[in-house]
């Protein structure tokens, strides 16, 4: 196992271009390599811009989803490496679980480390988990697991069964209505660095087989979490499943139901009722 320590966040457009060029001829087992950054201090202006796009209030602690923005470029670096068995184009983010062990102060120096694990069999292909861990002062404060589905891919012999389902109890219709504009993907791309073309415009999304641009799943998750500001435990797990893509523009609803000191949430299309996201928020 080798850990590559990067001095700065890698360039996402460059990584994505490389991913497209090196998509073919991949295979084999998951690499055990890790990618890391040390002593990362967030830029308050970038956090403020992220908070505005996701509707978090500007506070002294980071939004629970913000460390994902820091870890994601490292995960993409890992996935675009030649040793990674699956091609990045075509990977679909199907589940994301974040655990906030304690609120992270906006001024803390953070150590980030990402790795891939759990190459698993899925009824329509294979899944892989990209894991991220954030530490401050030597103690882990935040961790996350993003499950990606590669349709048509084959998991290695003896691989476990994929674990992609997030179950929630029945929720009534949502009262919170979001009119998600056509530029929602571009706005989130600008503050998160996730410039995947499927989110940016109808034309670029078509090139990747989508009829229209789709919203970033992590934006939907962040905004759902922001809607519960003030009502969440300090240490928590936010586990969401991404169901149908949220095409832009759309009008969607957020339904929420309290479960002890946690919540179940669902983001659905306002007219058709199709589910875009279901989530479980629980105290840790």
């Amino acid at each position: 196992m080798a850990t590559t320590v990067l001095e700065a966040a890698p360039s996402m457009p460059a990584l994505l271009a490389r991913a497209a060029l090196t998509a073919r001829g991949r295979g084999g087992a998951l690499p055990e390599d890790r990618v890391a950054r040390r002593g990362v201090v967030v830029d308050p202006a970038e956090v403020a811009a992220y908070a505005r796009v996701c509707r978090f209030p500007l506070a002294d602690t980071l939004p629970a989803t913000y460390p994902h923005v820091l870890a994601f470029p490292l995960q993409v670096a890992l996935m675009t490496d030649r040793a990674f068995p699956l091609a990045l184009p075509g990977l679909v983010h199907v589940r994301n679980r974040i655990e906030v062990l304690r609120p992270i102060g906006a001024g803390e120096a953070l150590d980030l480390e990402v790795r891939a694990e759990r190459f698993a069999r899925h009824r329509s292909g294979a899944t892989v988990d990209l894991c991220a861990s954030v530490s401050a002062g030597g103690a882990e404060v935040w961790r996350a697991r993003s499950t990606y589905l590669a349709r048509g891919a084959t998991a290695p012999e003896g691989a476990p069964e994929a674990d992609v389902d997030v179950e929630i109890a029945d929720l009534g219709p949502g009262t919170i209505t979001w009119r998600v504009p056509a530029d929602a993907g571009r706005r989130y791309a600008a503050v998160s660095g996730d410039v995947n073309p499927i989110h940016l415009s109808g034309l670029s999304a078509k090139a990747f087989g989508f009829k229209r641009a789709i919203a970033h799943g992590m934006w939907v998750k962040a905004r759902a979490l922001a809607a519960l500001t003030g009502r969440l435990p300090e240490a928590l797990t936010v586990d969401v499943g991404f169901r149908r893509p949220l095409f832009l523009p759309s009008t969607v609803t957020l339904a929420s139901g309290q479960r002890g000191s946690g919540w179940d949430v669902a983001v659905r299309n306002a007219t058709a009722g199709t589910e875009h996201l279901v989530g479980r928020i629980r105290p840790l």
Partner: protein
Amino acid sequence: MATTPRTAAIVGGNRIPFARSNSRYAQASNQDMLTATLDGLVARFGLQGQQVGEVVAGAVLKHARDFNLTREAVLGSRLSASTPAYDVQQACGTGLEAAVLVANKIALGQIESGIAGGTDTTSDAPLAVNEDLRRVLIRLNSATTLGDRLKALRGLRPGQLAPEIPRNAEPRTGLAMGDHAAITAKEWEIGREEQDELTVRSHQNLAAAYDRGFFDDLVTPYLGLSRDQNLRPDSSMEKLAKLAPVFGTGDPAATMTAGNSTPLTDGASAVLLASDEWAAERGLPVLAHLVDAQTAAVDYVHGGEGLLMAPAYAVPVLLARQGLTLQDFDFYEIHEAFASTVLATMKAWEDPGFCKERLGLDAPLGAIDRSKLNVNGSSLAAGHPFAATGGRIIATLAKMLHEAGPGRRGLISICAAGGQGVVAILES
């Protein structure tokens, strides 16, 4: 005869450090700052998930979308979502007026607890479209035919792209508040040196209060700031003397500088008030009680009175009602909008002519002991995010009175735009 109502207890306060305009809080909205301040108060007094009787707060510079600012802040805070809230606005008197409203409901037994606060940002300011453009757009919006729409569009001019920027000026006189204060300073012959002296003392007092930890349970750091950004512990007469006048500059003898006037600042504050019983049930302290309050207004437009002189009128009314003299106080908190405002107000109270002719008193109110004035600093050093100043002063004074022991009395005097003033008495 009606029974005397109880008086509301001041349990404590919380504020974020005040930041200079377009600096540390440039990205923060009024709602962000008020929510952070409420959450700090909630954490300090263990109010997570609890319902308080009412939250009353406001902002002077307010976006149209913030019509329900305080309720929105409550919904985003850790208070129970079933806590009612409403907004008030009385210019720089907003924070103190909010506390008076909460205290009155507690006194009448309509609520048992409440939070009063205020927030203001001069950075995330509510720019509005140019007034001419606004009229064109309204006409365009109401036009039903293509012809009407085209006619409306003919009213468009490139110059209308310039937005309306909120100014710290009086709508009826067009004068900046500082220019109004300069007129008063000249009238009362307030010198440059005494203004600078008051300013240095404000900075020194605030710095000393921070140094001895006085604000440890009154201020919660926010966005990397743990002390008021405007505070200059090394302020001195020599440094202040170098500053050029910025208000009333038509007069060669102008005295008001950027040093002895409060700068534009961003910030928020909140105060927890309650009945004695409510505080006792929760094991919370009672720092002081809000005994009484009074507002006044003066005609600065045509009546020849100074814009910021209303507190000079409110205080004698309050004293008469309470059977007190101006000297019956252990502490005085006179809001330092400008150093000259504090000095002119005190001079007016000492002036037999003013007290007889304007206030209708037989004898002047007299002088106050300067060593009891703004002893932990005031707005010149801390800054003055308009609606947040009342909460800052109430929490500070309540703590000072509590430290001094039972039966101590403090007077708060705050001047406000529109020729208004809010004054109040706290007692430990």
